[in-house]
């Protein structure tokens, strides 16, 4: 199903971040890395949320974790021992994190060493950032070439995203060395046109006006996301859904394709469906 591609940038580091928790960072990291891998690029997705690891569950490989990112950072294991190859997409690997340690276990030198090693083997390195703007999040963004800022259309999420965009422009290696700035773009998730029409959520234009960065995509609120998470499946590898196609579009744009923006939604979710979708 996948053919290896020779072109494209090798070892591009993309951080998936947001500031606020629960907006869909890990879901997006899983979906984006799976969608890039499906296109034949070699992708590794790293969980930076030390102590609260979730990525391995969303990717459906939590039972296969033996060594983790922290073991590698601290030199207790080799990278090849910690990397888990995805069983569905053979160009996709997962680097899970530790559930028992905390963010202080991440050192800047250790992270850099791991990223340097990964750059040799992978086309894209996706860093799944923890919530917040503390050490874990700063480590996840520090070496990034590109950033996807996951935002929900509501004020607190937008404000936190703005804060994170400020950090991306000042507290990253690219900023500190005066290189070309981190390419930042916003991914709107949990978009619900009904709630926007009722004035319960912010309109897309308002969010973009506040954040002043390019829009990568709009992912609708969808029950498919929760269903996929529950079975440990990135949403793009699960049954077709509006969320899955939104992520596919976003990834096409991430890789430089020109795809028109469209706002999908699942056909009239029932009352129960909406309830579950919202509480996801």
């Amino acid at each position, binding site marked *: 199903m996948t053919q290896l591609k020779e072109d494209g940038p090798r070892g591009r580091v993309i951080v998936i971040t947001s500031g606020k928790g629960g907006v869909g960072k890990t879901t997006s990291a899983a979906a984006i890395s799976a969608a890039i891998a499906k296109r034949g690029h070699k992708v590794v997705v790293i969980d930076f949320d030390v102590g609260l690891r979730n990525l391995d569950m969303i990717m459906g490989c939590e039972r296969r974790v033996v060594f983790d990112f922290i073991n590698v950072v601290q030199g207790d294991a080799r990278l090849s021992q910690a990397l888990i190859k995805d069983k569905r997409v053979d160009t996709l690997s997962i680097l899970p994190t530790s559930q028992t340690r905390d963010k202080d276990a991440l050192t800047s030198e250790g992270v850099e060493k791991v990223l340097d090693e990964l750059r040799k083997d992978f086309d894209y390195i996706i860093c799944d950032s923890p919530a917040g703007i503390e050490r874990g999040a700063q480590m996840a963004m520090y070496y990034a070439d590109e950033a996807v800022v996951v935002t929900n259309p509501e004020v607190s999420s937008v*404000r936190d995203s*703005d804060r994170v965009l*400020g*950090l991306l*422009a000042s507290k990253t290696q690219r900023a500190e060395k005066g290189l070309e*700035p981190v390419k930042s773009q916003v991914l709107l998730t949990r978009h619900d046109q009904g709630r926007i029409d009722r004035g319960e959520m912010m309109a897309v234009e308002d969010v973009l006006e506040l954040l*002043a960065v390019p829009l990568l995509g709009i992912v609708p609120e969808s029950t498919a996301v929760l269903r996929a998470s529950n079975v440990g499946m990135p949403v793009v590898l699960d049954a077709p859904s509006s969320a899955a196609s939104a992520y596919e579009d976003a990834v096409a744009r991430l890789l430089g394709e020109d795809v028109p923006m469209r706002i999908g939604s699942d056909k009239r979710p029932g009352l129960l469906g909406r309830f579950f979708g919202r509480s996801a």
Partner: protein
Amino acid sequence: MQTPSSDPRSDTDPVTVRPFHFRGLFLTAVALRLETSEMDETFYERLDAALAQAPQILDDAPIVLDFALVPDMNVPGKIRDLIDRLFERGLLVFGAQNATDVQLSTVRGYGIIPIKVGRETALPSAKTKAKPAKKTPEAPPKSNMIVTAPVRSGQMVVAEHGDLTIVGSVASGAEIVAAGNIHVYGTLRGRAIAGAHGDESARIFCQSQQAELLAIAGLYKTSETIEPELRKRSVQVFLEGDNLCVEAFQ
């Protein structure tokens, strides 16, 4: 991006170990000007109301008592009582200005120092600068500053010696400070502080006013005290005597 406060200093200074270092320090304080010498309950009620209106600004703010209008307030017990009651409210009084000798001798007992009027304090720091400057010749400070990117929540941009121009928006939770005027070619949602060293002729201009705070030379208005009809308008802000005026452009 723009972090003008962190000026890169050269590490080539041969003098590596020194036990201390005198540095100029700019400090924004709030002056509390007494306009009556009658410290009755109405005075404290009005004070509490003012504090409730802008708690985030006055909380833990260093305060200077200004006695300019009350030279006749010379009962030591009264002054001590005032200071005690200000401390009770979390106002950190550290200085007194325009005080008479009697007033000064009273407040000194509290460790409160005499302050010369705001603008005069800039002079000694300029004088002391001449000496240490010989070793590391600093580039003369650029007077004006232009920022061509949005100022994001949590960021602070300071134009220490002149005007500040922002081409872009200033997000809520961001702070822009200038010794001179401030221009924002975008939406101002954060806090803007012009005339930070006391220049009362400084002004703030912005294309769309949705500010959390507008201040010139220490006089300020918060989003709650700015007239609501001036929201989302192009405005200029200036001082007229002791009145901070926010005026929309037609």
